[in-house]
C-alpha cells in the first residue's frame, strides 16, 4: 500500500557525504537550484530559508524538524519517520552544516509518542556510527539532535507556535516578522522544516538538483508524498510527481466516481468533480499532501461541520477573527442543517470567511474558512433549503 520508491532507493548517508565535501554556500546553492519548496504545505523555498539563517553570525543556531503533523488527513510524516527516519536525520545534519548549527530538535506531536522509542534508538545508533555528535564522519561538523514531545495542539504545526511550545509557553503564534530564521528558538536563528522537506534535502544532496527537477512542473519541482484517505479502495501513502491531476491521483488510489476531494486537509479546499482536471502543485492546488476522497453518498454539510468543529477546538483564541469567526461559521452550519439560513445571511457568512482570510494572525485563521467558502461556492444547491429529518 505504501510505496516510496525513490526514498527507498537512496544510498545511506550519500547526501551527508556529498554535503560534507561541499562548502556551505554550495550546499544551499544545490538546494536552491533544486527548487525544493516546503512540503508541510506552505511551499516556502527551502534554499531561501536556509540562506537567511546561514547569513546570520549568531552564536547559536537551531535546526528544527516539524513533526507536528496535525492537518486532518495527513499521515505521510508518520510513515516517513517509521520507515525512513535516517533520511530525515541525515537531512537535518545537512541543514546544520549548511546554516552552521550545532543543535537540532525533532518536534514530535504528542499523538505520535509511540514512535519515540524507535526514533531515540535510531539517534543512538547514529551517534555510535559517528553520524551525530562531535566530528561527524571525521569532519569539523559538530551536531546532535534531541526529541521534544508536543502536548496536543494542532496550532503547534505553525512554526512560531512550535517555537513558543519549545520555550515552555502556550502555543500562540508570534507576529512575523521577525521570522524564525532571524529570531527563532530562544531568540537565535532557527530553521523549521517539515519532515518530508528534510528527507528530500538529503536525496537532493545525494543525487543533485537536476535529478530532482526531472519530474514536477516549472514552479513545483520533484515528487511529493501524499496521504490519501476517505472513500477510495486503496488508501495510504503515495509518491507522485508534482503537477499530477486530481483525476489521475484518484485513479491510482481507487477513488473514481468521487463527488469531491478535500485537498490540503481541513485548511485546504474542497475540489468538486468538475474540477478534477486541476493539478496538485503550488501554482494550482497547493497542498501539504492530504487528500480525503468524498464519495457520492457524502453530505457536504457533515463534512464542513466536522472541519468547523475542528477549528473551533484548535483555534488558539489569540486573535478575534479566528476565535469568533470559526464559532460563527459553525453556528451558520447549524442553521444550514436545520434549513433556516437565508441567502443574505449565507452571503454575510462568506464575507466573514473572507475577513478571516485577511485579518487572522496566522495560517490557521487565514485558512480555516477555505473549506466553508469552497463548499458554499460549489455545492450551494446541496446545502440550501434543507428539510431537517425530524420535521
Amino acid at each position: 500500500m505504501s510505496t516510496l520508491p525513490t526514498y527507498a532507493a537512496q544510498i545511506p548517508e550519500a547526501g551527508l557525504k556529498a554535503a560534507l565535501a561541499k562548502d556551505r554556500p554550495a550546499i544551499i546553492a544545490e538546494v536552491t537550484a533544486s527548487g525544493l519548496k516546503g512540503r508541510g504545505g506552505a511551499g516556502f523555498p527551502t534554499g531561501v530559508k536556509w540562506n537567511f539563517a546561514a547569513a546570520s553570525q549568531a552564536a547559536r543556531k537551531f535546526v528544527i524538524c516539524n513533526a507536528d503533523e496535525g492537518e486532518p488527513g495527513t499521515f505521510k510524516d508518520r510513515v516517513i519517520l517509521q520507515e525512513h527516519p535516517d533520511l530525515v536525520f541525515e537531512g537535518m545534519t545537512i541543514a546544520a552544516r549548511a546554516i552552521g548549527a550545532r543543535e537540532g530538535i525533532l518536534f514530535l506531536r504528542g499523538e505520535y509518542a509511540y514512535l519515540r522509542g524507535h526514533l531515540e534508538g535510531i539517534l543512538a545508533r547514529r551517534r555510535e556510527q559517528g553520524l551525530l555528535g562531535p566530528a561527524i564522519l571525521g569532519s569539523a561538523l559538530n551536531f546532535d539532535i534531541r526529541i521534544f514531545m508536543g502536548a496536543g495542539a494542532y496550532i503547534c504545526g505553525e512554526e512560531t507556535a512550535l517555537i513558543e511550545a519549545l520555550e515552555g509557553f502556550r502555543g500562540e503564534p508570534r507576529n512575523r516578522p521577525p521570522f524564525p530564521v532571524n529570531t527563532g528558538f530562544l531568540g537565535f536563528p532557527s530553521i523549521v522544516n517539515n519532515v518530508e522537506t528534510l528527507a528530500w534535502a538529503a536525496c537532493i544532496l545525494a543525487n543533485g538538483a537536476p535529478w530532482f527537477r526531472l519530474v514536477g512542473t516549472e514552479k513545483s519541482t520533484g515528487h511529493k508524498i501524499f496521504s490519501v484517505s476517505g472513500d477510495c479502495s486503496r488508501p495510504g501513502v503515495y509518491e507522485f510527481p508534482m503537477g499530477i491531476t486530481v483525476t489521475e491521483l484518484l485513479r491510482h488510489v481507487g477513488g473514481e466516481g468521487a463527488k469531491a476531494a478535500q485537498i490540503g486537509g481541513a485548511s485546504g479546499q474542497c475540489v468538486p468533480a468538475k474540477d478534477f482536471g486541476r493539478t496538485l502543485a503550488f501554482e494550482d492546488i497547493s497542498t501539504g499532501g492530504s487528500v480525503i476522497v468524498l464519495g457520492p453518498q457524502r453530505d457536504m454539510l457533515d463534512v464542513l461541520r466536522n472541519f468547523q468543529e475542528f477549528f473551533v477546538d484548535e483555534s488558539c483564541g489569540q486573535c478575534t477573527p479566528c476565535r469568533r469567526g470559526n464559532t460563527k461559521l459553525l453556528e451558520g452550519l447549524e442553521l444550514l442543517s436545520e434549513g433556516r439560513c437565508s441567502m443574505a445571511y449565507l452571503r454575510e457568512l462568506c464575507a466573514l470567511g473572507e475577513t478571516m482570510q485577511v485579518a487572522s494572525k496566522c495560517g490557521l485563521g487565514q485558512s480555516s474558512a477555505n473549506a466553508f467558502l469552497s463548499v458554499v461556492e460549489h455545492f450551494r444547491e446541496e446545502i440550501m433549503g434543507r428539510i431537517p429529518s425530524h420535521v
Partner: protein
Amino acid sequence: MLMTERDRLAAEIAGLAEKLGRNRTSLIPILLEVKRKYHTIDSYAMQVIADLLAIHPVEVNSVVSFYAFLGDRPQGKYVIRLCRTLSCDMAGKSRVRRQLENDLGITFGETTADGKFTLDWANCMGMCDQGPALLVNDRIHTRVTPESVHEIIETCRRAFGVHAAEAKEVVFK
C-alpha cells in the same frame, strides 16, 4: 493531600527538573511527565514547578490549560482518545464511540468512578487510512470496530490484576 504525599510529589518534581533542566524550556516536558505518572496536574504540583523554574504559578496554569494532553482535570489511568476528524468519522467513529460509552458506562469527557478510564476526543491523529483509530495512553489502535472495543478495554483491565505494576509497563510502555 497528605503531607507525606505532598513531600513525595515535590521530591519527584524536583528530580524531574534536575533531569530535564531547571529552566522554562523544560516546562512542557516536566508537565507531560507529571501528567503521565499522576494522571492530573493539581495546583500544588503547579506551585512546585513554578518555584523550581522561578516563574509565577499562573504561567504554569496557563500552559497546562492550553494543551490537550495536559489540563488540570484528573483523568483515569487509561485515557482513551478516539479520533473524531473526518476520515475516522467517515470510517464509522460514531458507532465506536457509542460502544465505548456503553461498555464503560460514561460519556466522552468523563472518567469512570474507579478512576481507571477516561474517554476523550482527539483531533486527527494521523491514522486516516486505517480508521477509526484510537489511542489508549500512548498506544495506537486502528480499524477499531464496535466489537473490538471490548477486547481493548479488557486488555487494560487485565493490567490491574495481580501483576498490575509489571503488566502495565509491558502493555502500555
